[in-house]
């Protein structure tokens, strides 16, 4: 068995948000949709202030609230631990979004072609690129898994939900997710928890660790080391105000 997951080392995180950007480029997510989000936190009062950072991918919970509530089975668990979203099946009821305690789901409120930052159909650009998003990643529209379902978030269909896929298209290719790959200080470690010799298993074994909102019983596959979970006293600074 495989059980993919992440170990995120808060000690090393500089909050640079490279992971967020790499995710956006790799998955061509539209404006306002952040599958990966890095919190920038502040605690305490001057001069006893603390500033720290926390990347927040989808937790790919083993006991995922979103999967339970999905009325049509568009959101499902794979044997390898990934929580997948079939963007061909989703009916856009957004039940997964209200059910998820981590706020990782992104709905396509708008036609993605009208929501990709710049006018990619500018005539002179058209002559160069033939139109459409120039850096469109071809892997995203493929089918993945034995079930052959389109879960790599290539759709960005209007009226469909989407979220972090752990870059399933890269993982099935033997690569790690874009966020883990790009991280300047190697904060994000991706691997198989069922493999006792994997980097992530070792990190987990050798470090005190926690999972977000453990009390929700969602059994996240994303573990944190080198820090403490945010409390009600933790203030977010420089928050990204996602807009469509």
């Amino acid at each position: 068995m495989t059980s993919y997951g992440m170990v995120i080392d808060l000690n090393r995180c500089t909050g640079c948000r490279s992971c967020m950007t790499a995710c956006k480029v790799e998955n061509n997510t539209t404006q306002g949709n952040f599958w990966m989000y890095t919190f920038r936190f502040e605690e305490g009062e001057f001069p006893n202030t603390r500033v720290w950072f926390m990347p927040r991918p989808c937790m790919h919970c083993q006991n995922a609230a979103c999967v339970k509530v999905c009325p049509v089975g568009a959101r499902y668990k794979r044997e390898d631990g990934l929580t997948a979203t079939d963007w061909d099946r989703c009916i856009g009821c957004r039940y997964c979004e209200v059910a998820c305690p981590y706020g990782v789901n992104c709905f396509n409120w708008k036609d993605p072609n009208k929501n990709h930052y710049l006018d990619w159909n500018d005539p002179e650009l058209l002559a160069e690129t033939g139109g459409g998003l120039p850096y469109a990643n071809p892997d995203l529209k493929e089918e993945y898994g034995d079930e052959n379902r389109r879960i790599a978030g290539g759709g960005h269909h209007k009226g469909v939900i989407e979220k972090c896929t752990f870059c399933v298209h890269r993982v099935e290719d033997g690569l790690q997710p874009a966020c883990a790959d790009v991280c300047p200080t190697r904060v994000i470690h991706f691997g198989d928890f069922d493999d006792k010799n994997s980097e992530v298993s070792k990190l987990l074994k050798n470090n005190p660790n926690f999972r977000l909102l453990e009390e929700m019983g969602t059994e996240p596959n994303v573990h944190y080391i080198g820090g403490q979970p945010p409390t009600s006293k933790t203030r977010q600074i420089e928050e990204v105000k996602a807009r469509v």
Partner: protein
Amino acid sequence: MRKIVTILMVIFGFALQAVSFFYLAAPIGAITSEASSNPRIPFAPVFFIIGVGSVFLAAVVFELLPDKDVQ
């Protein structure tokens, strides 16, 4: 006769509901694999609705079906 049809319909209705709810539709409970996101047979939910339908349709049958022994 009329009673029988009606009762049969009711039984069939509830049975169909139960079966489609618990066995034909996507399994309830822990979801660990892609399989559990699909109904065991396609359009299982329709069977459930048919079940509900037939239970109440039984009432119509009960009232509308001509009663031999009255004739």
